């Protein structure tokens, strides 16, 4: 009787979590498994139940085993292990034959990427991926976006169409999707921060740009390693064809020197790390179309109000960011009061003005 109660409890233990997952399962509708899979499952269940009943109630006579039976059982251990291996090899075979999606990473050994931000730097993304491997980046950063990540804080600034699909990975020589996130997901980091110089500076001294970051310094990497790694990061999340063609708009030669200075400051101060130029939100709001727009901000006491993003507001945000934080964004921006001069502020305001 006790045994049946134990078995019944076991069954409940197994069924309950399966029940719960219907409500929380983030990925809808299971893909159809081949019919042979369900036949195998049914056979396995029958075999397991039969085996359990046999070990619990069956007759066992000691000393009946021959040497041959020992060998047969030993072989069975190996066969069982190899059997599940085959169950993994079949979908693995299928997965690597999928057609690649349009934004799938596609860089071959020896191929060079020019910095889209126009700094004149260049690097080899394929080799950068190997640098990423050799330094264990994958232990804190993942390379895939789940649908639910868009709603959580794991991947700020990611767009719905950027959720990873099977075809995104087919051209990788090997994958490092990652199992742990101590830092942000990097699937679209290149789309968010298409700037190699920033990536290099950030690798060398992460807390210069992100004061709360716990990332270690990678200043020990050689210059070539840094450039290649930066090229790899910049390549992530961008259409490879566009990157090869050079997506960066070349700065107009007749440009106001103030705007040019502002652009340089945008990079060197690390604004690029959080504020995009293409209208997509990242850790902070995009600079595109920011000038003289009405924004809703949160004051330090928690109340909200509306302000016009004019020169005074932008200056205040740079020197004392927590005074008025744009609603919907975290209050994590450091103060730049001691790192910018009056003319720097002018240049940054002019630059943001030019981004209408």
């Amino acid at each position, binding site marked *: 009787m006790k045994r049946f109660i134990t078995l019944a409890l076991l069954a409940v*233990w*197994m069924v309950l979590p399966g029940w719960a*997952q219907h*409500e*929380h*399962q983030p*990925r809808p509708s299971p893909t159809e*498994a081949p019919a042979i899979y369900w036949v195998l499952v049914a056979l396995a269940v029958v075999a*397991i139940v039969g*085996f*359990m009943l046999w*070990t619990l109630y069956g007759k*066992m006579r000691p000393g009946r085993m021959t040497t041959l039976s020992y060998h047969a059982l030993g072989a069975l*251990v*190996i066969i*069982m*292990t190899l*059997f*599940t*291996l085959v*169950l*993994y*090899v079949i*979908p*693995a075979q*299928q*997965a*690597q034959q*999928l057609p690649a999606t349009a934004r799938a990473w596609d860089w071959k050994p020896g191929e060079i990427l020019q910095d889209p931000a126009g700094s004149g730097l260049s690097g080899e993304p394929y080799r950068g991926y*190997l640098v990423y*491997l*050799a330094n*264990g980046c994958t*232990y*804190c950063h993942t390379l*895939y976006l*789940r649908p639910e990540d868009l709603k959580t*804080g*794991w991947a700020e600034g990611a767009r719905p169409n950027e959720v*990873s699909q099977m075809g995104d*990975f*087919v*051209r*990788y*020589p*090997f*994958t*490092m*999707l990652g*199992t742990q*996130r101590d830092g942000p997901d990097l699937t679209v980091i290149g789309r968010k921060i298409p700037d190699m110089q920033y990536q290099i500076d950030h690798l060398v001294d992460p807390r210069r740009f992100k004061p*709360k*970051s*716990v990332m*270690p*310094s990678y200043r*020990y990497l050689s210059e070539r*390693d840094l450039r290649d790694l930066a090229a790899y990061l910049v390549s992530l999340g961008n259409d490879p064809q566009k990157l090869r063609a050079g997506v960066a708009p070349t700065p107009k030669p007749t440009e106001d020197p103030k705007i040019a200075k502002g652009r340089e400051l945008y990079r060197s101060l690390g604004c690029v790390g959080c504020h995009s130029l293409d209208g997509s939100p990242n*850790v902070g709001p995009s600079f595109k179309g920011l000038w003289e727009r009405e924004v809703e901000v949160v004051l330090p006491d928690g109340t909200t109000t509306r302000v016009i993003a004019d020169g005074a507001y932008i200056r205040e945000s740079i020197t004392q960011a927590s005074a008025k934080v744009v609603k919907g964004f975290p209050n*994590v921006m450091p103060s730049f009061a001691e790192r910018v001069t009056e003319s720097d502020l002018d240049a940054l305001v002019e630059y943001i003005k030019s981004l209408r």
Partner: protein
Amino acid sequence: MQEREKQAVKLWFFSSLVWLALGPLIGALMSLQFLWPDALNFLADLNLSYSKARIFHTNLVIYGWIAMSFVAAILFIIPKLCDVELQHARVAYWAGWLWNLSVALDLALIWAGIVGDPLLSIQPYEYAEAPLLVDLLIVIAAVMIIFSVHRTVLARKRPHLYVSVWYLLGGLYTTAITYLVGNFLTLAFTGLGNQIIHAWWLHNAVGMFITPLGIGIAYYLIPIAAQQPIYSHRLSILGFWTLMAFYPGTGLHHFLQMPMPTWIGEFSVISSVLLIIPVLAVVVNHLATPAQNWRRVFDSFPLRFSVFGTVYYLLTCIQGTFQTTHAVNWFVHFTEWVQAHAHLALTGAFTCYGMAALIYIFPRVTGRQLYSRTLVSWVFWIMAVVFPLFYLAFTHSGLVTGVSVNLLNHTIYETISAVWLARFFRTLMGAGVVLGFLLFGYLIVRSLRVGPRFEEGTNEVAEPAPAPATRRVTV
């Protein structure tokens, strides 16, 4: 035991202690990265970083400490159970040097961080980072060990195979298969297929390598130290075969949320939940055996450590089946909850088994008792009290991260401040656990010189003087 057998066991035994001192120490050091990241900037001057130190930590603990202490135990246990001397003991001895060389070379190559060399660059698979060159050396060493152990079993004088032999021999074979898959078969796949094969390796590194070996050792130690026959041979058969049937398929539960055919993910979840059957079979057997003679748990340290290891094993596996289900997994995935779980298995369960084995073997290969009961008790209470606190802080950090990021939509930068205290506590308690390991190493090395003479039938740990003769028991 013959001198050459002892030599082989001793080599694996003492090498494992060196790596036990080093691996967790690196772990404690690198946890500072999350508290005062600038304090570890000096690592960059040594061509090191947190991420490389993490590979050091996992590889040292698995290949240095767990693997080597388990092999030492296997080389000791299998001949006893087969009633025959260890065959080809010299081969097992030289395999020990080769294994040490592989681990040291592995460290050197991880540190060097060579880019794009097929033989010398590290591989992108967690726990299988060892470069191909090291893999080859490890395979040779493993083949040497399997050869020696297999020949011993074939030459046995006792026809009956006790369940430990099943676990240890079967475990060595599945270890070989798993290692070959993780380090070589993965090379044949690209893209997402590569990740699926990697997943097969990732969990089987624990499931088909560490688990059967650890359980096999505990199956030997518990009855012999408790001086009781095993509670149920039926359960041991059930446990062994269901472990072999359900464990290999579980790997993909590490990547449930990656884009892949859902049915293969479901397969891994079902396998993982079914694992509760072998776990309960093993745990019932391990706890019901000494229950008849519970006083021995206070007298015998090998028994005390292995019973505690079994308690941690039960907790790990209940947590494991719980967290593989989708409902839980989406919440705890990517957080330190999972790493805490890994520590509960390796630091809690299997390190306890390893320590139990070492305490049991030490007097029998060196002829000396462990010299201090106080010190062993300290190590035990650190494992019993400080380690759970360490684990709770670790898990707490994971839960807070889950709430902060999944439910409150905070960014990772905001979350880092929220978990600071939990991580601080984790480092503090982790340092305590490392201290316990160092004490354990000190205890054993010092016992080599000052330990009283050991005779079969006396306790492994010296009694406080004057030693009462009434404590003598026969095994």
